[in-house]
């Protein structure tokens, strides 16, 4: 289904990134409609996090164009990039919370440092964000005194407190058990609808992404080999999509072969 260009919040074209001899991104392109939740899937080491960090300006891409709300984010144009940063938040895989600051101070930091607000308003908005994420009772706790799930919610509170239009999530469920994985995806989908931001999630959790996302993309060998709705992903005959989507069936087949005593070939991850 074609997307009207005015409905696009983010458009990435031909993003390239090399680390020495290793090419991580080889012309990755992606479109993100305004107000949608887009999941970028891919195997471990496929370059998903690098792709996201290029978008967030943490890593500088070697080539390619990033368009945000119809404006090209040109390298060297500090004004445009600053404008982009003020409307975009990034949720790190590790949460990247400031361990020497309390929960309230963590949430207040982007408000204090990037907006012209009075101290009272900063506190009020920070407490409001904590309340929305059900953390208001823990405002004076340090991140180290919180559970993993609470830290994730605190990181999300910090990401949404500036009321961004785009939130980038870098593997928000990495290392979590299935129950917590579901909880995190539910949380993201709930708050994405509640606050109306556009979400771009990088993950390798296929079932959760297919349920939560409006659109799905698959990154492999540095390129997007698929982009479409979850329904289109399920129906796709693309070889890499089939391999990724039907990984459980593949696993069953391989285990059956092992039980039968057959020799199987494994692929290096």
């Amino acid at each position: 289904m074609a997307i009207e260009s005015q409905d696009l919040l983010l458009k990435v074209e031909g993003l390239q990134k090399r680390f020495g001899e290793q090419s991580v991104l080889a012309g990755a392109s992606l479109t993100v409609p305004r107000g949608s939740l887009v999941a970028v899937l891919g195997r471990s080491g496929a370059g998903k996090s690098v792709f996201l960090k290029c978008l967030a300006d943490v890593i500088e891409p070697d080539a390619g164009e990033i368009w945000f709300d119809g404006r090209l984010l040109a390298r060297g144009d500090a004004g445009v990039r600053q404008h982009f940063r003020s409307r975009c938040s990034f949720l790190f895989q590790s949460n990247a919370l400031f361990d020497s600051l309390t929960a309230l101070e963590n949430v207040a930091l982007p408000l204090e440092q990037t907006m012209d607000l009075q101290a009272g308003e900063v506190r009020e908005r920070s407490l409001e964000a904590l309340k929305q994420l059900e953390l208001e009772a823990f405002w004076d706790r340090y991140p180290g005194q919180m559970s993993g799930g609470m830290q994730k919610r605190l990181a999300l509170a910090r990401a949404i407190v500036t009321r961004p239009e785009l939130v980038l999530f870098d593997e928000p469920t990495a290392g979590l058990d299935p129950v917590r994985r579901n909880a995190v995806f539910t949380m993201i989908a709930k708050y994405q609808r509640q606050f109306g931001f556009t979400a771009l999630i990088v993950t390798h959790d296929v079932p959760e992404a297919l349920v939560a996302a409006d659109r799905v993309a698959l990154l492999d060998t540095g390129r997007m080999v698929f982009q479409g709705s979850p329904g289109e992903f399920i129906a796709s005959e693309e070889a890499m999509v089939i391999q990724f989507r039907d990984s459980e069936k593949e696993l069953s087949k391989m285990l059956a072969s092992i039980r039968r005593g057959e020799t199987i070939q494994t692929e290096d991850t």
Partner: protein
Amino acid sequence: MVRAVGRYTLEIVQSLGDLALFVGRSFRMAVGSRKLGRRVVRAMFEQGARCLPVILIVGLFTGLVLGLQGYYVLNRFGSESLLGTLVSLSIVRELGPVLAALMLVGQAGSALAAELGIQRNTEQIAALETMGVSSHAYLVAPRLIAALMVFPMQTALFCCVGLWGGSLSGSLLLGLEPGIYWSAVERAVELVDVRECMTKAVTFGFLTMTLCAYHGFNAHRCRSGTGARGVSASTTRAVVQSSIIVLAADYVITSFLI
């Protein structure tokens, strides 16, 4: 051999250029940075109040031992009355700024390098950048500005405690008249000595905290390893290089001001 020397020289030049850019960027980005004053005060507390005990203890024992050694040397020539001169000029011109700087490097400098290194490893610095907050202005500049104020204050304190330690050693333990000691101090120390002392303190503070911040901030680029090993290596390098630069800068400043 020639190629290795050339490569090594180029690396040094490149590092110096990188360091200069790091400092320049920190001060440039600090202009207009929000709540800078509050962060400078916090950095002054970390470098000042927390390092106070070590400054007082080392200052006191430096004065005590200088008084003891000086008394017995001067006693051979019947010049015990010059103990105040010996202690005051040694401390104010050399030992005060150098030892205070080394103590501050050991405590505040190593803490700064390790803290920034951990913040780099846990992506806290990257998080600041994605928020549109300059990590140079937020994390580095307050520490450098604080060092320009804290080092002279700590050095002055070190010198005062050192002089008192010398007096304690000379008069209380060895029987020299306190009035003789303090009048010798008053006669010996001139404004030019104090100026030399403060010049050294400011220079050492700027150089050492810059080096510590630079190594911590760039812990991820450390060749010795990444993660905890990288933080450890960058902290060690920061402390070693800062200690060397204190002694080298001391020689250069002394040779110009003497």
